[in-house]
C-alpha cells in the first residue's frame, strides 16, 4: 500500500500519463473478457432460484455494481484526503476522476434494482434500506461533483471536495443506520433486497467475476479521465506541449 501511495502521490503526472496510457487497452480487454464470462456464468450456468425464478439473475449485475459504488466512494475520499494531507496534485486529480464512475455504478445499481423489483414484487421501485441508501449515495456523489465543478479556483475546489468527501464518509454509516431503522419500522416483514437468495457457489463465482470486470472497467475509465484532467491542468508544462506538437505532426 505504501508503495502505491508513493507511486501515486509523488509520481509526476507525466509518468502517470505514460504508464496509464499503456495499461488502459489491457484493462478494457480484461474487463470485457471477464465481464462476458461473468454474464455467461450468471445467466446460463447458475441454477434457477427456488423462490424468485429467473428474474433474480439481475443480482449478478446489481450486487457488484452496489459494491463498486460504495467502495469507489471510499477510494475517492481516500485519494482526496491523501491529496489534502500531502498537497499531492495527482491524488486530487484521481479523486476527481473517480467521482463520475462511482456515480454511474450507483445509478446502475439503482437501475438494476428496479429491474429486479418489477418481476419480483410488481413495482419499479421499493423503498428498502439498501436501495434507499444507494439513492442517498448517488446524492452524495452528485453533491461532490457539483461542488468541485462550481468552484473555479482549482486548488480551492480540490480542497473543498476533499473536505466534503471526508464529511460524506463519516456520515455514510450514520445515514445507513438511520435508513435501515426507518425501513424496518415502516416495511415490517416484506421481502427486502438484503435477503439475497441462498448462494450456490456458481452464483458467487458469477458475482465475483462481475466484480473483477467492474474493477478493470473502473480502472480503465478512471485512468482515462485522470489523463484528461492531467492534460488540462498541466497544459503549460513542457511535456504536454511536446506531446501536442507530436500529435500535430502525426496528423500532417
Amino acid at each position, binding site marked *: 500500500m505504501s508503495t502505491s501511495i508513493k507511486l501515486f502521490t509523488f509520481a509526476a503526472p507525466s509518468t502517470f500519463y505514460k504508464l496509464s496510457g499503456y495499461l488502459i487497452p489491457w484493462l478494457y480487454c480484461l474487463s470485457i473478457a471477464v465481464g462476458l464470462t461473468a454474464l455467461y456464468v450468471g445467466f446460463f450456468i447458475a441454477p434457477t432460484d427456488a423462490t424468485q425464478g429467473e428474474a433474480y439473475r439481475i443480482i449478478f449485475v446489481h450486487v457488484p455494481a452496489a459494491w463498486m459504488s460504495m467502495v469507489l466512494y471510499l477510494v475517492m475520499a481516500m485519494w482526496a484526503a491523501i491529496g489534502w494531507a500531502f498537497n499531492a496534485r495527482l491524488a486530487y486529480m484521481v479523486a476527481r476522476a473517480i467521482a463520475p464512475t462511482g456515480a454511474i455504478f450507483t445509478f446502475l445499481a439503482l437501475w438494476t434494482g428496479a429491474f429486479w423489483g418489477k418481476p419480483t414484487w410488481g413495482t419499479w421501485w421499493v423503498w428498502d434500506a439498501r436501495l434507499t441508501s444507494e439513492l442517498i449515495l448517488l446524492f452524495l456523489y452528485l453533491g461532490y461533483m*457539483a461542488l468541485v465543478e462550481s468552484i473555479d479556483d482549482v486548488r480551492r475546489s480540490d480542497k473543498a471536495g476533499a473536505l466534503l468527501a471526508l*464529511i460524506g464518509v463519516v*456520515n455514510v454509516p450514520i445515514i445507513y443506520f438511520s435508513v435501515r431503522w426507518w425501513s424496518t419500522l415502516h416495511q415490517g416483514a416484506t421481502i427486502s433486497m438484503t435477503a439475497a437468495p441462498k448462494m450456490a457457489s456458481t452464483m458467487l463465482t458469477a458475482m465475483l467475476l462481475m466484480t473483477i470486470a467492474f474493477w478493470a472497467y473502473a480502472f480503465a475509465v478512471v485512468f482515462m479521465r485522470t489523463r484528461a484532467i492531467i492534460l488540462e491542468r498541466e497544459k503549460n508544462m513542457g511535456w504536454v506541449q511536446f506531446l501536442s506538437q507530436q500529435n500535430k505532426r502525426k496528423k500532417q
Partner: protein
Amino acid sequence: MMSHNIMTLLIRRDLRLASRRRTDAFLPVVFFVVATSLFPLGIGPETNTLRQIAPGIMWVCALLSAMLSLNTLYASDHADGSLEQLMLSTHSLFLIAASKALTHWLITGLPLILISPVLGILFDMHLQAVATLTLGLLLGTPILSLLGGLGAALTLGVRNGGVLILLLILPLCIPVLIFGAGAVSAVDAGLSPRAHLSLIGAFLLLTSLGAPLATASALRIAEA
C-alpha cells in the same frame, strides 16, 4: 460591554444586524407556513390522511425553511471583509463557526419551533404528537443550523450557492428527519418517543463537536 468572549461579541453583532433587517429574518418562517399549507391542497383535506403525514411534512418543510437563509450566513461577511478580520483575530475559528450556527438557529430555528404547534392544528395533530414534534424540532433544528453553516462555508462565493448548499447538506440531514418524524409516528402508535429523541440528542452532540470543526476548515479553504 468589555467582553472579550468572541461568541458573545459575534452573536450580539449578528443579532443586532438581523434586527436592522427584520424582513429578511421573517422569510424562513413565512416559507414554512406557506409550504406546509400547500400539502393539504395537493393531497386532499381528508383529516386522517393529513394527521398521518403531518410529522413528515412538517419536518421536511422545517428542513427546507432552515436552509433558506443559509447562503447569506457567511456571504456578507465574506464580501465586506469582516470574515477576513475574524479569521485574523486570535479567536478560535471553531467558536466563530459555532457562534454563527447559534445565531442562525436563534433567528431561523427558534421561530420555526414556536410556530410548529400552530401548524400542528392545521393537521389536527393530537396534543402529544404536537409536543413530540416541537421537542424534536428543538433538538433537531440546531443540527440543521450547524450543518447548514458547514454548507455555507463550503460554497462561499460560489454561484448558485443556495441550491448547492441544499444538495450538499440535505442528505446529511436525513437521519434527523427520519428520527424526528419517527418520534411523532411512535407517539401516534402509542409508543414512547424517547429512543428517537435521544438519538437526535446524540446527533446534536456529535454535530456540535464535528460541524464547527469542519466549518472552520471550510472557511480557511474558502478564504485562501
